[in-house]
């Protein structure tokens, strides 16, 4: 059972339009049992352990237990994802090994929802038939690099 749902914590996302885990699973594994109003993983042997459901669950009801056919019991890796960073906690099977905690940034300088595709650089010839893509050639360069390209390079 790679990703599993803790019955006590799952509220079936009753406050949301759709169940969060069902919305996000890239392999269509998470479903809501409409009798119990709890979610479950309908095909654990097709789970990639990508943690998309774990990260999105609003009640932290989903965890992952390593694949039973090759992972010893007793360890855990849990994730708490906010809008700017993610906090990981790793517990070893051997409890004498100190658990590890890591915090990594997940985005920088742009607030959630604000990633605007256009307008960061001018677009050169703006010719549909040329090789110049949106934002080129300006976006090929950085402030740091000494080479300044004023056109899309060819061989």
């Amino acid at each position, binding site marked *: 059972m790679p990703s599993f749902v803790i019955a006590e914590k799952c509220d079936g996302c009753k406050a949301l339009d759709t169940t969060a885990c069902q*919305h*996000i699973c*890239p*392999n*269509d594994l998470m*479903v809501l049992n409409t009798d119990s109003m709890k979610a479950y993983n*309908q095909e654990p*042997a*097709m789970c*990639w*352990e*990508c*943690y*998309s459901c774990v990260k999105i669950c609003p009640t932290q009801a989903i965890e992952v237990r*390593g*694949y039973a*056919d*090759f*992972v*010893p*019991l*007793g360890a*855990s*890796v849990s*994730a708490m994802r906010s809008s700017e960073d*993610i906090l*990981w906690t*790793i517990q*070893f*099977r051997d409890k004498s*090994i100190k658990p590890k905690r*890591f915090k*990594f*940034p*997940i*985005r920088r300088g*742009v607030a959630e*929802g*604000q*990633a605007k*595709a*256009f307008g960061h*650089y001018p677009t050169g010839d703006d010719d*549909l*038939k040329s*090789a110049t*893509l*949106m*934002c080129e050639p300006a*976006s*090929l360069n*950085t402030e*740091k*690099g*000494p*080479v*300044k390209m004023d056109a899309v*390079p*060819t*061989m």
Partner: protein
Amino acid sequence: MADFETVTVETDLLICGGGMAACGAAVEAAYWAKKHGLKITVVDKAAMDRSGAVAMGLSAINQYVDLNSGNNTLQDYLDYVRNDLMGITREDLVASIARHVDSTVHLFEKWGLPIWTDEDGKYVHEGRWQLMINGESYKVIVAEAAKNALAEADGEYFERIFITHPLMNGDKCVGAIGFSTRENKVYVFKAKATMVAMGGAVHVFKPRSTGEGFGRSWYPPFNSGASAFFTIYGGAEMTCQEVRFIPVRFKDAYGPVGAWFLLFKAMAKNAQGGNYMQENAAELDKWEPYSKVKPCPANLRNWLMMLDVMDGKSPIYMHTEDAIKAIVDKAPDAKAGQRQLKELEAEAWEDFLDMTISQAILWAASDVEPEKKPSEIMACDPYFIGSHSGASGAWLSGPEDLQTAETKDEYCWGYPHMTTVSGMFAAGDASGASSHKFSSGSFTEGRIAAKGMVSYVVDNGDGPGLDAAQVDALTAEILKPLSTFDEHKAETTDPDINRNYIRPTQFMYRLQKIMDEYAGGVSSQFKTSDKLLERGMELLSSLKNDADNMAAEDLHELMRAWENVHRMYQADAHMRSILFREETRWPGYYFRADKPSIDNDNWLAFVNCTYDRATGEWNMMRKPVKYISPNV
């Protein structure tokens, strides 16, 4: 069987997929479509934030050519890719992507992707072409920009629609058909141009896992061959269908080794402590000239390791503890060494947590502290992934301005990155012979192809119409597994066991067993032969017949049924292409025992194929390899 509603969507530009290539296509198409008053529709089987191979995140951007620094040229990248693929590469396509990819990476940074920088503000390279990132939300950020771009261009986005087939009018692609995995609806998308960006293929071969870990493939299990089927069924010429990819990764959980090899300079050794790259170096003489160029091609590094495995010298260990010790020993004092150890530890764990969390679980469950003990590595199972170090995909028209007098007639017939089918474009894993594009290059190829698509629609105006009879016939075919289940399920007390049908999971197991045993899978140590392939193809043909008798209980299982049909066509193209190429060229990807050496006199050529959906016949052909590099 429940009634299904048919929803018809008319659009100008249809983008099938939701991963990196599709997001690149959406962004670029939105820019140009807005100027030309065209409508864009994106259709995705998942939800864009976590759709495609980057769903979990990535710890590195593997294609950054860094032209801006002056350290690399386009020529350098071509030299690297050509040699890694043992000479079989479309340099015009590789250059087409490489010349734009830096622009893509700079945009990612503007959208909020944290790329590591050093004290001078320069990007931290993992290797020559790779940048380190904090990539947990890589796909979320890229999807956000793509969705914002679509909104600006009044585009439409449909999620949880599984595309099964292209819609054709004669030789032209006029859209796509599929169904919702959430409600009883068949979707018909009528389009003037269609982009295929639905990923590669996993689970064509049996994975190493036997039970619950079946889904722990290195590439995601939801990459199920949709691109390959779509292009094959549409009659597009396919290329490099024999060029699968087998990565070497940490054993079982398939965690990345790139940071350990490239960034931390770790060594892999056999159980006796021997370095297979050194001890088996004489083997490289057999694979010249490619084997003698640095870096040694990935498939040959695999091969030297596999020789040790076949000799009984495994387990093979990555010596993480020695690598960490070497780095810490170089520190000026003990305190600095401790600080460095802590940094390294965070970097090493983040490498897993960003892209293969299972590996972190496995290390924790095995009490692995990488500074104390080594970890096993092993070759994974074979994958179809045109974006990485494999090359399978559709045969595309290269950009005109990158052709030479010699390549022009062979490689350029129309709009940039269009297949041989009019109106059908491809990018990412869907496009062939342009390896080493990875996430950033796949996004970039989506951009290039999308601009080509807009140009195609502007020039060609209204496409040909759609034949209603074709839609009706495909609708019936697509939904048939549901009616098969309904019709026969009551005959037995266990709906899984029924003489009238086969359920998709068992069908997949049968496909995987054929491929594993006859086409050089894990259990045959990636070895096959003409006779094995011929027998495998015989078994595949009866599987193909049984595909008509697949049964599905619900929409989820209907998706599984079609995923496995898609995989089966990828398998068919793969076996035929291995058989057609009468040599062994990539011994670390597959070894043809009856043709055990490389034959550059006869086979420095592409193996291409087409499929005729009316007759079921395949046409195999050899196409010349022509480089655009002046001195090769």
